[in-house]
């Protein structure tokens, strides 16, 4: 068959251990309590091995079914996918640990949470590894459906309407993406990203395909004007689900856009890049202002996701300068930092919601003393969201500022720094509740230590991993996904 670098088995285990877990937990729901930790360990272990292989030996690939690129489907793990898999494994393991506790009482929904969540995890891993645009469409659809089913698991009226709106947006996004795939296939005759990358040349068809795919992916990534569906869905979902959605699912479609932008799209027009940058800047300002206006905690955190997503899109205009490598690695760092910090924030908010019985910010005052660890987690996660040192968020912000200034586009520093200030405003709007006198809480049902320590552990990870930045950059570099020659050192 094809002559490819040695087929690493880990790429397969990474995808199929959660899928096998999903089928198992669906068939024997009562034994899920035993199976889920095993499956989670298996997945995280295989991701760790794969990431170690990518870091040590460079790109890992696997020709599925034994057929080489144009005919068969390829799995391809380079630095970028390794980073995304690492983020998914970290947040996924933490949320799994949290969910075993969160659903202890509600065994009815728990029976269906596990298969759905493990399917979602499979879809994420499959999306990050797949090297074939149609296969990405199927993984994308699997991801969307699993996420929507999880949102609807909450059962409340706004959860269901949020899920419905999310479903309509998700289907529309996938269909436009599919049209893009159709156009690309009929012009270049292959579905493999690598081969497409060499063949694509600017022509009417590839422009239309690029436009369609970008539109579909922007819809799914909830960039500023198309963000209407995200806050109700993320806020109304059960706590572990909102953490997964904000931290991972929204990033998957951005990863797809980034991958296609780097490898496939013919010539990335400066205009489109600047448009995305502008929308990103607007997202930061609009998301933060909306977050400030919210009266409910989980909606505030959801709008903060809309704002933080804006940072990711600032990389597109910045990459049009000679310092493209720094800009891209900055947005990958933002993905890691936002995933960890936002998951911690949502889990902490969930704990506070379950302890206080409501999440109206005005009356959260006296809440803290039953769940002080969750408040600490919220605060520490806030540090990473704002981008204060030594968090990963700071490393990302530093690289992005450097890319802006070294690339000669100094005006992009305004949304970056401004976003930090606005983030401070809405994070401390919540933190000041800890110190305020007023506020009424029922404070009835206790929160198990596991739920609090998961949130705190994630926020500490967001803070501590900042010190591992050089190693992460080295990992990101393997296989030069982002056309990185050398990153970060000043010109």
């Amino acid at each position, binding site marked *: 068959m094809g002559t490819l670098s040695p087929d690493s088995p880990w790429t397969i285990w990474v995808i199929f251990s959660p899928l096998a877990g999903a089928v198992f937990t669906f068939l024997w729901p009562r034994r899920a309590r035993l199976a889920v930790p095993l499956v989670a360990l298996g997945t995280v272990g295989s991701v760790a091995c794969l990431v170690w292989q990518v870091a040590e030996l460079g790109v890992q690939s696997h020709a599925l079914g034994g057929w080489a690129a144009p005919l068969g489907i390829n799995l391809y793990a380079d630095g970028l996918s390794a980073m995304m898999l690492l983020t998914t494994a970290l947040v996924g393991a933490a949320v799994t640990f949290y969910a075993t506790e969160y659903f202890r009482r509600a065994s009815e929904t728990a029976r269906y949470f596990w298969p759905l969540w493990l399917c979602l995890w499979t879809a994420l891993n499959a999306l990050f590894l797949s090297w074939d645009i149609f296969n990405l469409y199927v993984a994308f659809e699997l991801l969307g459906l699993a996420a929507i089913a999880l949102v609807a698991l909450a059962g409340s009226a706004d959860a269901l309407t949020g899920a419905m709106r999310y479903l309509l947006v998700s289907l529309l996004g996938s269909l436009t993406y599919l049209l893009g795939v159709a156009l690309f296939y009929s012009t270049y005759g292959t579905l493999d990203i690598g081969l497409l990358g060499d063949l694509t040349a600017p022509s009417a068809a590839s422009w239309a395909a690029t436009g369609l795919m970008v539109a579909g992916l922007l819809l799914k990534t909830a960039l500023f004007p198309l963000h209407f569906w995200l806050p109700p869905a993320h806020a109304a979902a059960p706590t572990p689900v909102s953490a997964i959605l904000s931290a991972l699912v929204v990033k998957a479609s951005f990863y797809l856009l980034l991958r296609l932008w780097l490898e496939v799209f013919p010539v990335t027009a400066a205009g489109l890049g600047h448009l995305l940058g502008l929308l990103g800047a607007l997202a930061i300002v609009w998301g933060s202002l909306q977050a400030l206006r919210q009266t409910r905690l989980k909606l505030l955190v959801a709008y903060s996701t809309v704002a933080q997503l804006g940072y990711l899109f600032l990389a597109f205009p910045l990459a049009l300068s000679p310092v493209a490598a720094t800009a891209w690695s900055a947005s990958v760092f933002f993905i890691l930092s936002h995933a960890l910090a936002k998951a911690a924030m949502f889990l902490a908010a969930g704990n506070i919601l379950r302890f206080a019985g409501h999440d109206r910010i005005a009356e959260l005052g006296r809440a803290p003393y039953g769940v002080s660890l969750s408040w*600490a987690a919220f605060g520490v996660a806030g*540090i990473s969201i*704002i981008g*204060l*040192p*030594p968090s990963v968020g700071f*490393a990302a*912000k*530093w*690289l992005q*500022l*450097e890319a802006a*200034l*070294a690339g000669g586009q100094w005006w992009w*520093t305004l949304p970056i*720094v401004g976003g*930090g*200030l606005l983030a*401070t405003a809405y994070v*401390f709007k919540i*933190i*000041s509740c800890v*110190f*305020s*006198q007023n506020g009424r809480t029922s404070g009835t049902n206790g929160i198990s230590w596991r739920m609090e320590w998961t949130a705190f552990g994630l926020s500490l990870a967001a803070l501590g991993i*900042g*010190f591992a*930045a*050089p190693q992460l*950059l080295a990992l990101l570099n393997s296989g030069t996904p982002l056309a990185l020659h050398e*990153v*970060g*050192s*000043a*010109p």
Partner: protein
Amino acid sequence: MSWNASLPLLVLASSLVPGLIIFCLPEEKQRTRTTLNLVGVLLKLALVTFMVWGVQQGEHYETRIPLLPGLDFVLRADALSMFFALLSAVLWLATTIYAIGYLEDSPHRSRFFGFFSLCVTATLGVALAGDMITFLLFYEMLTLATYPLVVHRGTEAALRAGNVYLAYTVTGGALLLAGMVWLHTLSGPLEFTANGFLAGLARDHAAALVAIFVLLIAGLGVKAALVPFHGWLPQAMVAPAPVSALLHAVAVVKAGAFGIIRVIHDVYGIELAAELALTGPLAGLAALTIIYGSLQALLQNDLKRRLAFSTVSQVSYVALGIAIAGPVATIGGIVHLVHQGLMKITLFFCAGNLAETLGIHKVTEMRGVGRRMPWTMAAFTLGAFGMIGVPPMAGFFSKWFLGSGGLDMGQPWVVAVLIVSSLLNAAYFLPVLRAVWFEDPPEAWPAERSFGRSETSLMLLLPTLSTAFSALAVGLLASMPLSPLQWASLVASLEYRP
């Protein structure tokens, strides 16, 4: 990690670890919390003095952890950092004892002392920072650690003050970050090196360097309470007394001033700063702040707000000394770091005692307090005389060196500014002293609490007296080898080596 490399980390850990443990302590564990606090502070004091002695012998302490490509997390002990670290360690001991006494039975003490220890860790980190990114790291950590202390009481006013404080300091941090990244893109690594590492860039990036300087000084000016950015300081008076003492005498304000010294001495270097005509406007701004601060202090009736505005003006002496440059003025500026620390902390302790024992907050209510609390008022008088610059108090020496330094550098207007500010100091302190000692006390104090034989609890009185006495001693023993004055001149001489 050799011993020399791990010592700075140990200094930081000596307050970070107890702080984290205190966070988890339940409220009623009073004794363990106090012992942890004291052990932490004493351990830190011992380690810092050991390091001071080590630096004296020429040891080289440096911790280096790679943070970003081309940027490292560096903790280094050099003369200037030891100067500020020693000041912080000593004053922290006094403030901790005072805080334990002051917050006798108030709620949330575990939370308070947890953030209190984080604050000292951040201050020590600022002192020991070896490059700009580490400085920024601890500078922002200081903001985060002090916010909960400012809003500790949880009243509406406290929360508003906290928001104002946050708005100022985080914006300052953002400006500092922008300046640093811009500098990084121009000059690569941002290590502090004696008299600057930007000499090579002056030719083609002059305009950029000036802009960066403005950004850096604006970012630092917020914490150093230079005029346009001082707004948060008076508002933060709503915090409990040990916090105001902490903010004004030791941590936040000094971190800003220390940062300005670092930027001018170890980033730009004196010659480049003068060459780019940066020090002139800074000196002017400092002078303006001195005058403005003193004037505002005159108008305040609330005692702590008056002291706050006096701090605004006093800290700018440091900036003034550095801006005028020249060996003598630099000594004056650097030594004022310590002198102002000692004097201002005494004054705030007295204000705290008055509030705690007699419920006095306004200056007008202080008539005849001298008879009721003689020792506290004696300390207050010493502190006031120091502020005015009466010899042999510490304040006199720093003003003396600043004035003579200004004359050496051909800036006579500096002497004029010093004289005017001294007169203003006298104007807002002397009438208070007169009222305190020579007028008869009112029938009943607003909220009197008796503490048995002594005028107020010993835990409050002892720190006040010790800092007042040390302010006097520093002045009297200025010529002794280990006095802050000699140490400052050593630091200044390192700067002006030919």
